[in-house]
């Protein structure tokens, strides 16, 4: 039986009818057509589907859509200011070559945001701990770590 869920998506209230077995990722991509969030493994291992739920990172591919009801969700589309200006984390990723194929990037950037929101000056170890749930097969992570350090002014 379909149910209606209401939540704040990238700052705007949305109301969407969903089947109870859908994941948040399916609702974001297929119903709301926000395809910035990627599906990698689909099992909560790779972090490509990372979104922020009430400011905390979650793997949307294994998160029941109905649990987003009443919450606030931020996807990579919500990170820019709407005028086409990139977020400082996105700028740093470009500047430091922290992107190659780009598939892990939306999730990685959101994990970086959640980390920096909580800890404005993370050590390298804390950065590694914070992004451990986001696999990147291109960069070898070093550029990503450099980019995150740069955003935090280190």
């Amino acid at each position, binding site marked *: 039986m379909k149910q209606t869920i209401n939540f704040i998506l990238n700052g705007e209230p949305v109301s969407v009818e969903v089947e109870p*077995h859908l994941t948040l990722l399916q609702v974001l991509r297929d119903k709301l057509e926000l395809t910035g969030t990627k599906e990698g493994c689909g099992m*909560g291992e790779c972090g490509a589907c990372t979104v922020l739920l009430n400011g905390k990172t979650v*793997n949307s591919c*294994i998160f*029941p859509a*109905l649990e987003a009801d009443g919450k606030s969700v931020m996807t990579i589309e919500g990170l820019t200011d709407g005028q086409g200006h990139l977020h400082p984390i996105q700028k740093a990723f470009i500047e430091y070559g922290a992107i190659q194929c780009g598939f892990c990037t939306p999730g990685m950037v959101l994990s970086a945001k*959640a980390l920096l929101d909580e800890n404005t000056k993370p050590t390298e*170890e804390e950065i590694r*701990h914070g992004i451990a749930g986001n696999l990147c097969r291109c960069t070898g992570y070093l550029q990503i770590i450099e980019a995150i350090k740069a955003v935090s002014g280190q």
Partner: protein
Amino acid sequence: MKKFEYLKPHTLDEALILLDQYGGRARLIAGGTDVIVMIKQKEISPDVLISLQEIPDLDRINYNGSLSMGPMVTHRAIEKSEIIRKNFSALTDAVDVLGSVQIRNVATIGGNISTAAPSADTAAPLLALGARVKLKSMKTERTIPIEQFFTGPGETVLQKDDILTEIIIPKPLPNTGSAYWKHQRRGALDLPILGVAVLLSLDKATVTCSDLLCTASPISTVLHSLEGDEVFCKEVRIALGVAAPTPMRAIDAEKLLRSKKISDELLEEVAETAAKEAQPRDSIRGEAWYRRDMIKVLVKRMAMKSIERVLKPEETVFPVRLW
């Protein structure tokens, strides 16, 4: 993914009624990081999921010497709790290396032990900390030691109409330290080859060394150069994960150490006994002989780490580094 209904009761009683009503067709869901994956992998196929997210207070942590946690406390909440870090360190060690931040933000301690994977990271620390769990159905409510909770891989004493409602860790004796080591190949997002948790209560928290440099040395050196000062073990619990079909206590090893004077040699003997007691199996992650060998190494190290956390609390390093 298979279709299912998704129910969100607002009270525990409502959840118990639903569980009773649907019987084996329903499955409880907490964070869902196990349940949704198991449905996707076609290991389970419930018609109904009953979510515990909307039930108030199940995510509470209460501390008044002893610790009470609701089943919906996330691993992230445990990781961030200074009280748990300080008083129940083995549990912090475990959640620090469990999954990823994304997983820890939603996965719960109740879910971790109810799934009852032999590799469940919080199981061995809870055994070492002497935890008890409260189980509630419409008819009964009972509290049992966590040793009796696990009955096999993926199996627990939970009946289909039971809900795990509370995890209680008793107040530790004075001068108690505990530590858990997850032996894994990667630094994160891995399952343990072996999990070793130790809790030790000492008869004192300060010692005098004959050697001035002693306090800066590893604990084994400290134990060697005590100045007529002897350290006794008042209480000890040793717990192993992935060392038997269920998380287990190494009872014989504990007996060897309880009420004895602690020495390097005795700890070695204790670790060897624990290795003999374990019943590890060959699996894709490691062979039985290797697991046994590592139990010898890690039981001793976790005992040392526990002693270190009593004698040198200010040096306690998180996330865990062995030395």
